[in-house]
């Protein structure tokens, strides 16, 4: 048993305080009665009420959720395919270029991705709206999905798949019945990552959104530019709460799934 020295305790305490205090202040002050965001004048949940009555925010939230749902679903399908191709595809013409295409969007500055997609949509005459944001988000998040899924695929025992094929499965059945259940945690994690990336994205959405479709981050950004507002604090608190709940429940769920899997494997060995 190692003991933590005072240095480590201090650095961890200060570090986590730095990471969490700004968000805690935001949450506390979303319940502030005063319109002045830095002066505490009493507890009140009225900003939440006003937020739900703000139609522009509600409409933007709905667009954002739609975009995030469709783009993360497409990204998961395409990203899983891409991961499969990279890990299992063997050699094919243009493989290096393909893996370059997969990794490049991860390091590409968002302003460039956004600008280039906008120029594409304009040159093919596609009207900007929900569809263009979905296409843009699918493109950059499929790369994240494929990184997550390919690391799982690489550590996967191929003999299981071959056994299924030997026992008369078609390749598609082998994928559906053997490979997919095993890589499922990575696929779900990829979907969640794609979903949050899409919910969060301001820059690419600003380039590819038209006047008909505004997402929540665009809305938040334009109102934040004018300064801090209690309504945005309330909205931020809700988003922090949803993310915290989501992350904690998935991590507990996956911990249990891993424990169950280990138990099954142990029983199988006996």
């Amino acid at each position, binding site marked *: 048993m190692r003991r933590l020295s005072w240095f480590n305790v201090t650095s961890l305490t200060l570090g986590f305080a*730095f990471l969490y205090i700004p*968000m805690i202040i935001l949450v506390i002050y979303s319940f502030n009665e005063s319109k002045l965001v830095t002066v505490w004048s009493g507890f009140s949940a009225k900003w939440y009420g006003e937020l739900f009555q703000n139609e522009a925010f509600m409409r933007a939230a709905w667009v954002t959720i739609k975009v995030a749902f469709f783009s993360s679903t497409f990204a998961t399908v395409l990203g899983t395919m891409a991961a499969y191709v990279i890990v299992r595809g063997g050699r094919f013409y243009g493989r290096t270029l393909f893996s370059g295409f997969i990794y490049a969007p991860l390091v590409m500055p968002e302003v460039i991705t956004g*600008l280039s997609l906008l120029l594409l949509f304009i040159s093919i005459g596609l009207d900007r709206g929900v569809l263009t944001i979905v296409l843009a988000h699918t493109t950059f998040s499929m790369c994240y999905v494929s990184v997550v899924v390919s690391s799982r695929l690489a550590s996967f025992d191929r003999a299981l798949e071959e056994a299924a094929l030997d026992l008369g499965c078609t390749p598609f059945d082998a994928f559906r019945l053997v490979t997919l259940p095993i890589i499922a945690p990575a696929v779900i994690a990829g979907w969640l990552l794609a979903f*949050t990336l899409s919910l969060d994205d301001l820059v690419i959405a600003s380039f590819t959104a038209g006047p008909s479709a505004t997402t929540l981050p665009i809305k938040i*950004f334009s109102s934040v530019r004018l300064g801090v507002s209690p309504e945005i604090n309330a909205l931020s608190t809700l*988003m922090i709460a949803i993310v915290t709940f989501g992350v904690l429940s998935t991590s507990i769920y996956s911990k249990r799934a891993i424990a169950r899997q280990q138990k099954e494997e142990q029983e199988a060995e006996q």
Partner: protein
Amino acid sequence: MRRAFLICIPYFWLIALFFIPFLIVVKIALSDSMLSIPPYAPKLDISAGWAGLKAFFAALDFENFTFLAEDDLYWKAYLSSVKIAAISTLLTLLVGFPIAYGMAQSAPEWRPTLMMLVILPFWTSFLIRVYAWIGILSNEGFLNQFLMWLGIISDPLIILNTNTAVYIGIVYTYLPFMILPIYASLEKLDSSLLEAGQDLGCSRVSAFWLITIPLSKAGIIAGCFLVFIPALGEFVIPSLLGGSKTLMIGKVLWEEFFSNRDWPVASAVAVILLLLLIIPIILFQRNEQKNREAEQ
């Protein structure tokens, strides 16, 4: 047949929505700005055939790049982006290393929880995390209230809308990217090496410099690139926390495009930003490759 189909779908998707758009950016960077919709010329007219294609290529030139080279606003923006990204990467390392070190030293049963605490902010909206600092750093914000209450200062410090606020914003939002790779390399560190060092007469401080730092070098380098590369093209942080004097290339590109509506210049800025990023990206890839080889 089926395999070809599987390869083709993601491949063509990325060609259509990643590669071709980029070619369009390069093309527009070589075009001229026009008062029309879309605001640039020439436009490719395929119906004119070979002659049209020739005329199209003849009309492309490097004028926008000469313009960028001559106007020192752009030079300053590039240099100041590199400077801001480099300084904030260094600051993130100084803040992140002790946290990663503390995590690696803590009891094994605590580590998953600590890891979770580092990852959680990463999942929370980037925009909200940047926004949270506006209320803290402003003149009548929490930091100034706190320092004045302590009696350390009598007049509020002006932090918001300066480069200092941009540094704080970058360190805050990119901290998980620095902590995680360093923690991963520190966790693998064999503590018996440190004991051996101390047995051989090293002091704890010199054992740290001679053993811990060199063995966690790969994680430190990876963390630095993971902060430096996105910080270089950052737009949200300088536009919300920085002032009118904060020059960063992502912000310049945004303004060229949305405020000045000069698409060719915005595209030329994008091309140069990418050229600027190629060197750190290649170095990062090499570092990753080397680590993978070292592990095998």
